[in-house]
């Protein structure tokens, strides 16, 4: 099987992916797939998207040599792909710009989104404001509380934020609620899914819109270094920033790839959000993938200090990449991520979000095992301003 051709026509990555939704959404998904397949090769659509990415998002984002960090860790050279410097402060905007253009071309007047950390919600509210679309964001009630700066941002941008009280009150429940909204308002509403999960064609189109990250890394590493990196490291919740970095480089066998899941209190405690490390194949939110479920098939609650990684499933393409052994999936704990957060902040003057702090923490373990002339690219998928309240609270510091 030629990897680049996945997913197949039915949206499958090997045994994963597909379209497991109630009948009402099947035809709208087929229409979305047809529209996307037409628009993605349409030069006018491409030009509009490229223009937005350059002039609104601020691409390309730098590939930054973290020299002090490299010296401190004493091994491979660390480069940071600065997705935190994008407009709205994370990679999420790459995808929302693309999906909002799709919505516009499909004549939809209202967009809905689910959000965990709030970054995707902010990115959706942002592009909705710019295009004059009505925007509703579903967010787990627990996440609303721990990510209050982003909630306020969304409201400033004119979005309606609906706290979701059902289930575990986190990202998975927000996704359920967004799907319920979509099934009810499918005529005028476009569902902007924020990660590479959900029913086909979402895992494909969200990947495609994020793949600009990996394409830039190829060009930048060749220009700045004269060669490709030896290793890529990215955090994996649903997996959109990771797939965006990995996908264009999958064809280069010499490039090793590491997806870092949220180990929470430690995999052995069961309190984590690492379905690839400790879950099993199942069906959730419209696709077959690795999920965290009990012996009866009920999805179980996850735990991570990072709201953006606090999800019991993962994109189906990651499930496939795990099974074929192309990507190594690992995990780091809350404590390790926090330590990495502080280290990057103090050593390089860059405050990372808690999500990519997981990737930084793993790079710290990886770097000393590699030679000094080798190169690691870490996807710094978002900035940490949104997390300072969470971190202060955990460290017993009052900000008010």
């Amino acid at each position, binding site marked *: 099987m030629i990897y680049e051709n996945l997913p197949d026509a*039915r949206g499958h990555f090997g045994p994963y992916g*597909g*379209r*497991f*939704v*109630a*009948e*009402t*959404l*099947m*035809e*709208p998904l087929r229409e979305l797939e047809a529209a996307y397949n037409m628009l993605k090769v349409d030069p006018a659509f491409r030009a509009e998207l490229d223009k937005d990415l350059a002039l609104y998002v601020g691409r390309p984002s730098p590939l930054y040599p973290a020299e002090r960090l490299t010296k401190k860790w004493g091994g491979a050279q660390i480069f940071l792909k600065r997705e935190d410097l994008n407009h709205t402060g994370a990679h999420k905007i790459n995808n929302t710009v693309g999906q909002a253009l799709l919505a516009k071309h499909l004549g939809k007047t209202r967009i809905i989104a689910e959000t965990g950390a709030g970054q995707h919600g902010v990115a959706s509210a942002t592009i909705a404001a710019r295009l004059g679309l009505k925007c509703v964001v579903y967010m787990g009630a627990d996440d609303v509380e721990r990510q209050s700066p982003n909630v306020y941002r969304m409201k400033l941008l004119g979005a309606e934020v609906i706290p979701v009280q*059902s*289930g575990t009150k986190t990202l*998975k*429940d927000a*996704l*359920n609620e967004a*799907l*319920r909204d979509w*099934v*009810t*308002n*499918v*005529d005028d509403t476009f569902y902007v899914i924020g990660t590479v999960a959900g029913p086909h064609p979402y895992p494909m189109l969200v990947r495609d819109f994020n793949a600009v990250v990996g394409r830039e890394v190829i060009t930048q590493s060749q220009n700045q270094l004269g060669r490709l990196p030896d290793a890529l490291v990215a955090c994996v919740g649903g997996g959109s920033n990771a797939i965006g970095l990995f996908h264009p480089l999958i064809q280069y066998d010499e490039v090793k790839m590491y997806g870092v899941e949220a180990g929470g209190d430690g995999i052995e405690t069961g309190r984590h959000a690492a379905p690839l490390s400790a879950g099993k*194949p*199942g*069906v*959730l*939110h*419209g696709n077959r993938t690795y*999920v965290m*479920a009990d*012996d*009866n*098939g*009920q*999805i*179980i609650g996850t735990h991570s200090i990072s709201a953006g990684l606090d999800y019991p499933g993962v994109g189906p393409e990651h499930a496939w990449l795990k099974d074929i052994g192309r990507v190594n999936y690992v995990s780091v704990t809350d404590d390790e991520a926090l330590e990495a957060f502080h280290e990057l902040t103090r050593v390089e003057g860059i405050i990372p979000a808690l999500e990519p702090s997981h990737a930084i923490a793993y790079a710290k373990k990886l770097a000393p095992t590699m030679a000094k002339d080798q190169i690691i690219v870490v996807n710094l998928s978002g900035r940490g301003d949104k997390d300072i309240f969470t971190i202060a609270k955990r460290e017993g510091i009052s900000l008010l």
Partner: protein
Amino acid sequence: MSRIESTLSALKARGAKALIPFITAGDPHPSHTVGLMHALVAGGADIIELGVPFSDPMADGPTIQLACERALIHNTSLWNCCAMVAEFRKTDSRTPVVLMGYLNPIETRGLDAFCTLARESGVDGVLIVDLAVEEAPEFAPKVRSFGLDLIFLLAPTSSDARIEAIAREASGYLYYVSLKGVTGSASLDIDSVTAKLEQIRRHTALPVAVGFGIRDAESAAKVGAVADGVVVGSALVSQIEKHQSTPEVLPDLLKSQLAQMRAALDALN
């Protein structure tokens, strides 16, 4: 002929409409479910749809979400649901029972193991909300090989091509979702239901039951006038929610609630 087919063809022969109540197994407590099933039969049920609780019921509205949460507090599993049907079968060998739920609990247990146990327990049919016909090429023949009917949903958005593909894989009956929305939604547009049923019947001779938006005798009669059967779920489940702390009143309540719809349907012929 399966128990579902013979039930529906007997009804058709005398010009009657099927009344198909839905409750969630294990709600408000697993010990009540079998008693409630018998009460539904006493109230005039022709087929029972028994909901298998799932942690992430993405096609359900708040009423059935909460029912799932109540059932899951008591760890009501797919295996428990089969045991409840087996218990029900001890005194009712006539009323077909359809298990309705989501795919993950079935896949977790394994399709073969599930079909074997379901068949042994006296289950007649399976409706898996998130199993689209495209994803069912191996699934549907397997389920049928165990003598179970596989019931599929049709929706207002289903195209002619999809209706045809679904009807080819379905057996027992088809479940037409009357509106774009989740379970428990209020609005029912009988004209659009009528038009869609005409379209569906151009592709299949299977009986078509209609659900979503049927709350009382009046809406049951409206739908019964054009469909082969009516499904009522959230209206019953909200009674269970309301009286969860005094569950002993539920059998009589559900029985009389259903009996009103039964009377309205029977008044049609």
